[in-house]
């Protein structure tokens, strides 16, 4: 059985600021990032949908350390965003002063853009990730 939506196509779309997910035709739950099955009911009766790209910050951290080769990105603010369709997604918060962020940003509305991680020798190519700014 083939995936309905593989990383390659998800990545290509995110590079155009279009976040793709999978809507379950059996239970209605949206799965994003994509999986083989609906993450709620395990159905494979899924269709590709474009997410609105809006949501609210569920939690965050500003990192002052990073992996080999990514030191130039620091400090970096990582967020888990609760998308309006329900699922949470990993991304970065941009257009802010990293050193002034407090717990008050939890719950704030954000909108999606993207930035490409160019990849390193371990990563089998590049990968776009969501970046969020306040809506």
């Amino acid at each position: 059985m083939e995936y309905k939506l593989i990383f390659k196509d998800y990545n290509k779309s995110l590079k155009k600021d279009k976040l793709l997910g999978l809507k379950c035709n059996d239970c209605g739950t949206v799965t994003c990032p994509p999986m083989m099955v609906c993450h709620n009911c395990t159905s494979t009766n899924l269709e590709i949908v474009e997410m609105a790209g809006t949501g609210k910050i569920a939690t965050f951290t500003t990192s002052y350390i990073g992996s080999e080769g990514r030191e130039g990105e620091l400090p970096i603010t990582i967020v888990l965003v609760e998308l309006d369709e329900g699922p949470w997604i990993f991304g970065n918060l941009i257009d802010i002063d990293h050193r002034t962020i407090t717990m008050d940003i939890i719950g704030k509305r954000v909108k999606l853009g993207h930035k490409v991680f160019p990849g390193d020798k371990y990563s089998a190519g590049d990968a776009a990730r969501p970046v969020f700014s306040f809506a």
Partner: protein
Amino acid sequence: MRKVVVLGGGHSKFCFNSPKTEIEMLSEVAMDAIIESNLTPKDIQAINVGNVLGDFSEGQGMVQSFFANDIGCFGVPANRFEAACASGSIAIRDAFMWVASGYYDIVLVGGVERCTAMGTPLATRTFAMYGDSRYEYPAGFTFPAVFALLAHLYSDKYKIPLPRLKEMMAAVTVQSHEYGILNPNAQIQKLLTKEDVLKSFMVSTPLQLQDACPFSDGAAAIILASEEAAKKLTNKPVYIKGVGQASSGKLSSQYRFLPRIRARELAAEQAYKMAGLTPQDIDVCELHDCFSIASFIAAEGLGFFEYGKAGEAWERGETRLGGKIPINMSGGLKSKGHPVAATGVSQAYELSRQLRGQMADQGRQVDGAKYALQDTLGGDGVLVSIIYSNE
């Protein structure tokens, strides 16, 4: 299913910059375990080895086979187990199933890692491989960041103001170092104050350097045997009473439960059920305190405290010697060190000695301990619970 006994063990001093190779570290502790178990290498029927990063730290894959040969277990089948930080624990669980099933009578389980040879940038990169590489790593995923995200979520969900939560988290570090200083195998034998923790380098808000376990080198080994085989070898058997293991998906996919780790709760439920025990029965626990906040999430998921209440319990001393549930009398990952795949085997080594009353000389014996629980978290995906008893 047959009863399974933990015989002897071996444990290296956990350290920075080990002068020994992974095979050397593992061979030394394995020979200690074999000798303490009144066995010889010829008695070992199978070998399970936890090892995660040998490929990166030494350019050494398949460490299990060369290790088996080095200790004279010529031709003995040896398998490598990988589940990030829970590698040693899945190696124990599988060995338990092999012995319980009757297939083998005596199995050697080891775990080894040499993280510090990689240096911090590469070590951080390789640790991050145990998150989702395509959907989460690109955003800067590291394990400090994961537990930092969970710390803020914990503060928000349980309505504990962040400065207050930070104080509670500091209490974990302070306690860990108080016991670690008593453990001759611990990597960082130094007392820390709450102020030391709160003034340390900010790693990933709100987690500071002293909220985090170190990178470590080290090895540990234990021998598992059937009850019948063990009768001839020891008069102080420690039994494995229950085991549990569960998997989770990428961190974002766990959103319905976070900051709880559902897989931990599933693993613990399996272990408690198999052992016929409840959290109230446990006398001593080693849990996966890779970060201070991880201790709260673990202790609550294992059923020792209500959700959002573990920090107060640490502050009240309920997790100390003589408290409601003594946790990490070894110093935990924070003070003892965390050589990834050695950690689960180290926890088993510690708890089997607690249950034999062998920690009195070190001043960290839980008097009369009958039931012990081991909790290990691998990446954000593999959770293992193992319950031991001396009766």
